[in-house]
């Protein structure tokens, strides 16, 4: 999963909680095993190896559902959220120090193998049209796991708690006394400081930002979120937080808003979910849902 995951649960007995937590961890492990690009034996890696063949790959219902969701994200983001764009990370090294920016030729070569338009998705058949393409569910799998975790817990009779997967969290239900969970959102420009606190009774809040993983070259900051059409890091917003009923939706929305850069706030308004954002310049904006 690549990030710390934390469960806070309230239940009737310790055994009940332990049982529920174990089942959740099994489910999360299952999702990780299937969709991790780090694992050679995952279903995703298998698909990546076999999808550039004339007959393509027939996928199961869960993978099909995720591919349909990825397709929706692609269409609703005007092509900015693209699960084939993971390859572009090969040009950028965001974990360490780099002295120079990647050469445009490297990026251009990679761009030839990137683009949801270069796949054939005809459920349940999946095919790559170009060789050496790669699917990356990095923007989807963790949030999907958070929602699955919550649903598993509810099935086990747990109705109060929070599932926190690397800062993206989904509330199972309010605290036992009915009070909401207070979620702090970090300020992207002032390390360690809180931008806001959000009380949540239910639902999910996810935050996408350029302030934790980035590259600094010649004093300029380059975010780890890459525009799949240009291969270059996006600019405009430093962080976006979105509240939605499902972590999957909140996660996609906050990522797409970041990818839209200056157009992010406008896109968030069209989504209609409560959102909070900070621009690169430090201006804070928010969208509150109008009463229905």
């Amino acid at each position, binding site marked *: 999963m690549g990030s710390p995951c934390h469960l806070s649960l309230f239940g009737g007995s310790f055994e009940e909680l332990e049982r529920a937590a174990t089942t959740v961890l099994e489910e999360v492990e299952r999702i990780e095993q299937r969709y991790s690009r780090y694992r050679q034996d995952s279903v995703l890696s298998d698909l990546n190896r076999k999808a550039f063949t004339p007959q393509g790959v027939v996928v199961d*219902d*869960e993978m*099909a*559902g*995720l591919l*349909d*969701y990825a*397709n*929706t*994200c692609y*269409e*609703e983001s005007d092509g900015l959220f693209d699960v084939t764009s993971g390859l572009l990370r090969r040009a950028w090294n965001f974990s360490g120090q780099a002295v120079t920016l990647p050469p445009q030729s490297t990026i251009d070569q990679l761009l030839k193998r990137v683009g949801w338009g270069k796949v054939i998705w005809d*459920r*349940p058949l999946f095919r790559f049209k170009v060789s050496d393409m790669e699917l990356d569910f990095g923007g989807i799998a963790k949030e*999907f796991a958070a*929602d*699955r975790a*919550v*649903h598993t817990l*509810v*099935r086990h009779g747990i*109705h109060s708690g929070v599932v926190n997967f690397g800062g993206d969290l989904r509330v199972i239900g309010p605290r*036992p*006394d*009915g*009070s*909401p*969970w*207070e979620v*702090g959102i970090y300020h992207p420009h002032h390390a360690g*400081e*809180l931008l*806001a*606190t*959000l*009380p*949540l*009774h*239910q*639902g999910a809040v996810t935050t996408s930002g350029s302030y934790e993983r980035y590259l600094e070259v010649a004093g300029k900051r380059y975010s780890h979120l890459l525009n799949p059409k240009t291969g270059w890091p996006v600019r405009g917003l430093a962080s976006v937080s979105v*509240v*939605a*009923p*499902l972590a*999957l*939706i909140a996660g*996609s*929305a906050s990522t797409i808003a970041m990818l839209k850069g200056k157009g992010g706030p406008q896109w968030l308004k*069209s*989504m*209609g*979910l*409560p959102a909070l954002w900070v621009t690169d310049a430090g*201006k*804070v904006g928010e969208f*509150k*849902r109008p009463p*229905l």
Partner: protein
Amino acid sequence: MASAGGGVAVIKQKAQRRAPRLAAFTAAALAIPGMSEAEGIDLKPENFGIDSAYSNYQESHGRMSVMAIQSDAAAQWADDLNFKVNTVLDYIGGGSDPMNQSLVGGASPVFYWGKGNTYGKKTGELEYSQATHGAYKGLKGGIFDQRLSVSGQLSKKFDDLTLGLNGGNSTEWDYVSNFFNLDGTYDLNGKNTTLSTGFGYASDTVWADGGDQGQIHQTYTNGKEIGGNKNTYQALLGLTQIIDRTSLLQANVTVSNSSGFLSDPYKSAWVNNIPGGGGFGPQNTFCTQSVRFSFSPNLCADTRPGTRTQEAVLVRYVKDFEELNQAALHLDYRFYSDSWNVQSHTFEANWVQPLPYEMILSPHVRYYTQRSSFFYQGVYDNPTANGFYSSDYRLASFGAIAGGVSLNKAIIPNFNVGAGIELYDRSQGSGFMGGTGSAADNYSFTIYSVNVNLKL
């Protein structure tokens, strides 16, 4: 989507009554196996929102409402070591139209200059002595602010000694504070005597909010930003002594020293007999002016000395009356004095009376008298030699009487409701300490409060 079946179509139809984009995401998400099977979870976005419990308190003219959202997570690291993190988000909204002068008073009263006022005075004639505006909200002014405060506490208990460290940050639209406190309590005489000591330091920055949630800072007419840094050191020494089984006595001494920008960034004072003549138009050449209040050269920005040393002594007596159903009496006396020549006395008495049916009645009364600071004037007859100007009513001479009663009842164990009424009357004439005050600063108010507490 051939294999998803009729279920998806139904969900899509319901979803499309909402924003179409969100509907597309929701339909696709719910179609993933395992996503829609959660019974008992309400997935309709219109049913959740940013809402939470709040405590509500309305002033008598419906002005200020305070929403306090509070949470804390306590974790025990070891038996005797506790770490606690508090976050408090206070949203302070309300305030009144600054030009509506019939609504004055309140927790943080504001007085406005009567330009175009409704009291039958001539345009430009001074009605009240002080001009002020609060944190910015559009053009209507009033008090509108948001505060976020994060603090952490660490405490360690030895045998008879407990040490604590507390620090944090508080941010509002016109104010940032970083602070820490150290405190220690020491029990003697088999816990009959407790000594307490504390030390604190705060480093604050204040400015006048000119809009955009504090991003825009107001300036003086010379271009300099209003505001600055302020450092405060504070020390406390206290003693609590158990006298007998039903009574105790407590005494505290506090000293503090502040330096830096100590003026009020929003207030201005009216000065008569100024060089160049008054009215509108002539330039102000003798004092600092805020841009907001530069339409008349008679207005000078609130300017106070750059240092202030304060001392306070508090004595408290508490007595339980077992024979009166465990009633209790609290008597307080506090003396305060500072280097601005402000001095005050406070006398307060509280009675806590448990009643049948799990009710508690608490009447209380307080008398306060204060002497003004050496530089305070309601209206200045002439420019001052020292350059200090402040018409802040809190630095004036005045007396105040307050009293009230509250009634609380436990409905079921752990669930309390309460109601209260508080009357407050401040007037220039009811103090006994002399000094300068102004009848224009007199006000009174009544507060009604209701609170509900649930503890599980």
